[in-house]
């Protein structure tokens, strides 16, 4: 299952690679990383129909996670449409509602509870 992680913090890559090293080793999950909304959109265009799930931060310079979400949900992308989980340090209702309105499939607050995230990821039916 291909997962695209979008965050402006480069160390997020190291963290995910270590947290999910068993899953990566077993080939259960494959992670790709983008450091901005724009980069994420480019990746989606360049790798059509690959990504099953997008895990995106909201607060990023340039295109925000919410804008990325809007693009993903509204722009015509090759099927199947990826699921989108939003991750943010600002877990207020306003942002939550906005994300949900834009069609986010889930909304998680930082710091990420990786155990809970693993459960959620395993629950996604593998394609």
């Amino acid at each position, binding site marked *: 299952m291909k997962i695209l992680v979008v965050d402006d913090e480069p160390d997020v890559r*190291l*963290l995910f690679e270590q947290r999910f090293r068993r899953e990566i080793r077993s080939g259960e999950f494959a992670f790709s990383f983008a450091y901005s909304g724009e980069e994420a959109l480019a990746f989606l265009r360049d790798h059509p129909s690959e990504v099953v799930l997008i895990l995106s931060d909201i607060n990023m310079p340039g*295109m925000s996670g919410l804008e990325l979400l809007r693009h993903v949900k509204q722009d015509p992308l090759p099927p199947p449409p990826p699921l989108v989980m939003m991750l943010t340090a600002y877990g207020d209702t306003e942002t939550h509602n*906005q994300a949900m309105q834009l069609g986010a499939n889930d909304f998680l607050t930082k710091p990420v509870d990786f155990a809970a995230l693993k459960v959620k990821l395993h629950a996604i039916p593998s394609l």
Partner: protein
Amino acid sequence: MAGGELYMAAPTAIGLVYWGRKALDIPTRLPQWDRWLTRLWRPAIGITGLGLLVGGPVLDWLDNMFLAFVLGIGIGIGWKLRAYRPALWLAVALVPGTILLVVEMLVRPFNKNFENGPVDNIEGLAFLWLGVFLLIARNQAKAITAEVEARRAAEQEQSTLETQSETLEYEVGQRTAALARQTDELRATLAELQATQGQLIQSEKMASLGELTAGIAHEIQNPLNFVNNFADVSVELVAELAEERASPTRDHTLEAELLADLKQNLQRIAQHGGRAAGIVRGMLEHSRASTGERQPTDVNALADEYLRLAYHGLRAKAKTFNATLQPALAPGLPLVEAMPGDLGRVLLNLFTNAFYAVQKRQQTGELGYAPTVSVRTALVGDRVEIQVRDNGTGMSPEVQARIFQPFFTTKPSGEGTGLGLSLSHDIIEQGHGGTLSVESQPSQGTTFTILLPA
């Protein structure tokens, strides 16, 4: 003055006494003598009365002798009062006539014809003498009176002057006291104003710190999350490593990989911990009252730190706001002798304003608008330049002209103190010997430029 005359010598003598008392002011000058003089009328009346009733040469002689006696007293008084010049002249005037009278009276009983012949001439001379010296006495008395008058007038004038000068001195004293009081009041007011200014600066500092709190929390939480996550994952790695070592078929490559990951994680923990510590240190520096001590300061680090803090501070309030940050920090910039806390406040203020301006422009719903705030550092000659640029609402020339004035703000009441840029200006120009200038175009954006001596 033969027998059968009117016995006028004694009354004349009394008249002379009263005139003399007045002329020489005897009641004041010689009060004891005066008491006797005022009683002289009694023998005078006795002599005159008896003379008119009985008559005869003896009484006539007594009459004249009484006059001579009075004249003698007059000479005595004149001599006694000789310090007063007219009195002396009076005595001198009386001497010949008196002597003549006494001699005549002493001779009369023996020579009836004494009055005639040369005696008349002597009498004439004596009268002339009397007249001349009385005149002198009178003139001198007049002169003395005039002098006394003049002196009294002068004294009066002086006393008037003294009174006036006293009044003047009193008024000057009053005025001086009033001025001193005013000075004290002004001094107290000045001290109060200075204290108030200090409090304002401190409260402005605290207000900006309040704005920062959310940004700081976010900025600290991020590295802290990394610290926690890398620590957690390292525990897992150690467990896996231990498991691997206990296994009969040890995978040395995997063990080496795990150890390398562990080492990397520990480095990340130290790095993110240091990041959080730096933010806390910056915050403490910001809230501390300025020590006024300059120290070599990395302007790039300061600019980057406060750009992020300001951004996250605004994000905490306006959650959906997003802007592009464009730090363009010149590598190898020399350290600047600066007060990092104060300079940080200036940068924070400029960034906060920049984000406010781009946020306002974004709220107008302009299509395709990308809010951008950039900070650029450069070495310009021997000075370090820091430029804070935004593509926000911009300012009219009228607003630009006033932005460095204290209490001027374009923000709605309650949102800005109007002190931020005024204090920033003071900090840069007075505190660091630099310059702070502004360039702005309405609807285009604003650029603030700080120039600091390197």
